[in-house]
Every structure is written in structure tokens, then in C-alpha cells.
């Protein structure tokens, strides 16, 4: 096999660990505006990047990170280079804003990008993005490229020209052998992205960072949306909490037990 080529797809999202109060929902504009929430790499995409780096450590090759969107933050996406990716491609165009592109449209852009790069052996995505929580793009992309997809990967190695994937099940684990090229969607069990040192960040400045626009991909019409956002609302489901109080932990513990019993909860 020639040099292993791995592509990791990354999405920039508002920090999903931000406090609940930071999420403002503008129903009229049908937009979520997180107040004071910085963008980050979607956490499962970080897991995917980590898996890519481990594959390269073991088998050699090249890791290319790709992100599609508008208003991409270079600072956020550069993290991929600092962590160890060999190159970063920002596919950025006003036409690629989430107002125009849905998951399907994003996949068409990603597929064009990957075709332009030259067919990789392995494509990695997070199992789902932390903003839309859809879990569709990875599988759509595999279909668009006509390659095999294995979801919920927590580890992978190459054996005899095939890829061996450890896949998380609701009640355990399975090992899947798949032909390459293959797309894997990666889950948190793959492990967190490695730590980044100041030196890593400095080295990253010398790595290639390319900007591609719609025209560079030969895309002159924006794909029609298949998915329309009709409404956006804040979830309303707060409850009234009865706080059990008392002079000592013993008393509070006892009172809770009695209360749950008397209210027929337990």
C-alpha cells in the first residue's frame, strides 16, 4: 500500500460545556446565540482527530484535517495542526453558512473537497456534532463517496490491507473488519485529544494551511436544502424543587427518606 492518507472532518461549534444560562434562543430569527460562549472543536471530532493521529503513529502516513463552513475561526481549527495533523484545509465560503447548507449540502462540499484531495484510505468524523446532534454527516459522506462506513469506533488498526475497528455497542463491544477506503464515525471512548504544548503550537505555524472557496471546488450552485428549520424554541420543563432542610446531615437524610415514603415516591 502506498502512504496512508487519512482525512479528519472537523466542525466548529459553540462550547457545548457552557452553562445552560449562556444559551439564548431567538425564536423569531430561529437562531441560538450563545452569549459569551467561545467556539471549540466539536468534542467527538477531537476524538476522531486523536484516533487519526494514533493510526498515523502506528502505520505512518499523512493526516489532513478539513473543515467546511463560513466564518471559521482559524484559532479554533489550528488546534488540529497543533495536535499533530499534517495539514489543514479550511473550505470557507459565505455560501457555506448553516443558513444555506444543511447536513446534505455539507456532505456534497466535503465530498468535493475529498475528491480534490485525492482518495484517502480512511476518513474519520465524530459520531455526531455537539450543536445539531444529528449524527448524519459521516454516514451521508460514506454513501456519497460509495465507501464502507463503520459507526461508533473507539479504536482502529490496519491489518492485511483491511481496517479493524473496535465498535461500541449499547451493551459491549464488537470487532469489525472492513475493506478500505473506509469512513469511521468516532465516539468518546476513543479517548480525549492529546495535550498540546507551546512548542506544538509554534511548530504548527509552519504547517500548510489552505483556504478553498466554493469556486475552487468547482461548485457554482449551492445545493438545495432538504431540511428546513421551521421553529426554534427554548425547552420548557423546569420543575419545582422541594429542598429538604435540617440541622444536621443525619436529620436531612432521614427527612428525605420519610418524605419520599409519605409522598408514595418509594
Amino acid at each position, binding site marked *: 500500500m502506498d502512504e496512508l492518507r487519512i482525512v479528519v472532518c472537523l466542525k466548529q461549534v459553540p462550547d457545548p460545556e457552557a452553562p445552560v444560562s449562556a444559551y439564548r434562543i431567538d425564536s423569531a430569527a430561529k437562531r441560538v446565540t450563545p452569549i459569551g460562549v467561545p467556539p471549540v472543536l466539536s468534542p467527538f471530532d477531537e476524538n476522531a482527530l486523536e484516533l487519526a493521529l494514533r493510526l498515523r503513529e502506528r502505520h505512518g502516513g499523512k493526516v489532513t484535517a478539513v473543515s467546511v463552513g463560513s466564518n471559521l475561526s482559524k484559532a479554533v481549527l489550528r488546534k488540529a495542526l497543533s495536535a499533530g495533523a499534517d495539514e489543514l484545509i479550511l473550505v470557507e465560503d459565505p455560501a457555506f453558512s448553516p443558513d444555506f447548507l*444543511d447536513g446534505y449540502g455539507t456532505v456534497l462540499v466535503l465530498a468535493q473537497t475529498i475528491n480534490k484531495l485525492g482518495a484517502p484510505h480512511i476518513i474519520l468524523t465524530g459520531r455526531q456534532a*455537539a450543536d445539531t446532534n444529528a449524527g448524519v454527516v459521516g454516514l451521508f459522506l460514506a454513501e456519497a463517496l460509495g465507501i*464502507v462506513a463503520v459507526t461508533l469506533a473507539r479504536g482502529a488498526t490496519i491489518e492485511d490491507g483491511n481496517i479493524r475497528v473496535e465498535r461500541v455497542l449499547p451493551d459491549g463491544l464488537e470487532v469489525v473488519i472492513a475493506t478500505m477506503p473506509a469512513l469511521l464515525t468516532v465516539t468518546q471512548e476513543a479517548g480525549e485529544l492529546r495535550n498540546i504544548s507551546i512548542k506544538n503550537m509554534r511548530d504548527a505555524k509552519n504547517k500548510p494551511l489552505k483556504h478553498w472557496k466554493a469556486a475552487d471546488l468547482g461548485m457554482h450552485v449551492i445545493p438545495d436544502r*432538504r431540511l428546513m428549520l421551521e421553529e426554534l424554541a427554548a425547552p420548557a420543563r423546569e420543575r419545582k424543587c422541594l429542598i429538604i432542610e435540617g440541622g444536621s446531615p443525619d436529620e436531612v437524610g*432521614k427527612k428525605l427518606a420519610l418524605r419520599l415514603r409519605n409522598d408514595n415516591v418509594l
Partner: protein
Amino acid sequence: MSECKGVLVVGEKDTVRETLSKATRGVVSVGRRLADGLSEHLSAVFIGDNVKDPAEQSIRCGCDRAYLAEHGSLCEYDPDLYLPVLQKLSEDIKPRVVLAPHTALMQDLFPRLAYRLKTCVVTDCIHVELDDRGAALLMTKPIYGGNALAVYRCSSSPHMATIRTHTGLSAAPAVDNQGEVVRLDVDTDLHFCRMKVTNRIREELNGVKLEEAEVVVSGGRGIGGTDGFEHLRELAMILNGALGASRPPCDLGWVSSLAQVGLTGKMVAPNVYFAVGISGSMQHLTGMYESRCIVAINKDATANIFKFADYGIVGDYRAVLPPFIENMKELLERKV
């Protein structure tokens, strides 16, 4: 596309009990409601090596027709074998709406199917309904980890959705519905096999299954380590419940990752849910807010979890949990 008609449910069987899965039953009742609203048919399809029983049960639960793709080669889920069956059926019967429970299998299958049918899919919906004209399916789904609720519509056909499966969805009662079972031809030459499962390790969990437990006792990062979880295990045991956790204890290896409750873990809706040392992130709440009663123990009075709890104790769980457990034990013994 006006020629599209009817609602199709892609069903799953409960592999332990060899029956129609509870999650599928819930989705059948959603499908029945939509089909009635449209005055159209409700069908279900089952794929496997032995799926006649669940197919017949789906009819008793309200389906007008159950399609059956039965073949030895289909006993294990393989998208390369399942997709052609579903693609052909969809192209033949042209359903308006295609639904499935949001299970691990369907999360893998539905996006692939949507792409092949040249449409889209909304995953993990908590509600679906028809718009005023009955033409489009409005699909409600939590996004941003549950911080917002989006209602989507799909401009292509069929309209596809996976439905979140914990309760709140009342499973359809077994009525004396009449319907027909239709066997589909299975093209058995299809075996070109791009992926193969070579090994499977099921983790045996003792006691009550998390998704089926009436009581769930969950701990979070605030538990501080494996030792603390022993208290929670004890409480779960005396209440005949299951142990759960937020994500950090799973990531840190304090408990099995199968215990994770939330957006990317298990969805549960027990009678009573204990959240101990859990701050109440939306991603966690997503997996448990439909519990009938939520009890929170947290040392931070401003923790978000208290906004979603029915009963709360502000305090260190190490101090309040042991007396609570002692008293609970006594009260339960007194009853019997």
C-alpha cells in the same frame, strides 16, 4: 410528492424475548396516529432470520400490513444487506413517512437509507406531527445538547425520522387489529461483504437493566472516585434499581461506560431518578428528564440540577447519603 402515501415503520425485535421490541411498539403507536390523521395505511417492515412473531405482533398493535424480509443471511445486521431490502420496498410502496425507534441499530441504518432514498432524516425526535395541511411532517428534536428545541420539515420525500425511545411514548396496546403479513423476496446473491463482525463482547451487568429499571441511582463527577460509587450501588440494590452515571465517571473509569445516562448514553425514564454529585448539564438532563420523580443531592445550591428536580438536598453526599440509606432501609422493611 403527492404520489407518496402511508406511513412505514422499520421495526426491531427484542432479541432476548424474541418479540416486538418495546421501542418499536412505541413508534407503531406514533405511526398509527399519523396514518389516522392522513386516512392512510400504516405498515411495518422487519428484517432478520426469524421475525415472523414481531411482524404479527405489530399487526395486533395497529399496523395494517407487516412486511417480512426473512432469510438466514439477514440474521446479523449488515447495512449492505439490509439497505437494498428497504430501498426496494420504499421504492415499491412509496411511503410518505418512514419512522424507526432511535436505537443504536437505527442510528446506523437510517442516515444511510435516507441518502439512498435521496431524502434526509431527522434523528432523535421527541415529537412528530403533521402540519395543518397534512402535507408535511413536523419533527421536533432537541439540539445544542438539549439547550434548544428545533422543529424541522423535510422538503424531499419520504419524510424520515427516528424517534427517541424512552417512555412518554405509550406503547400501543395489543388490540384485535386485522392485517396482512407480506413476505418480501430477498435477493440472496447480494453477498459482496464489505464488512464483517469477527468478535463480540457483551458486558454482563448484574441486576436490573438500566433502561428498564423503576429506580435509577446515578452519580457524577462529584462522587470523586470508585469508592463513592459503592454507596450508590448499595442504594440501588435496596431499591431494586440500577446504577447510572453522568459522563465523567465513565470517562474516568470509575464505572462502566455502559452506565452513562444522557444524550450519548442511555435514555431512561424511571419512576425515581437519583442524581448525586451531578451538576445538571443539558446533555445529562436529556437522558433522564422524563423520569417521574427526580431527587438531587449536590453541595452547590445553585447547581442546574435543582431546577429539574422534585426533591433536593444541598449538601455533601458523603454526609447525607448514609443516613438516608439507613432510614430508607428501615422504612422499606417496616412495610413488609
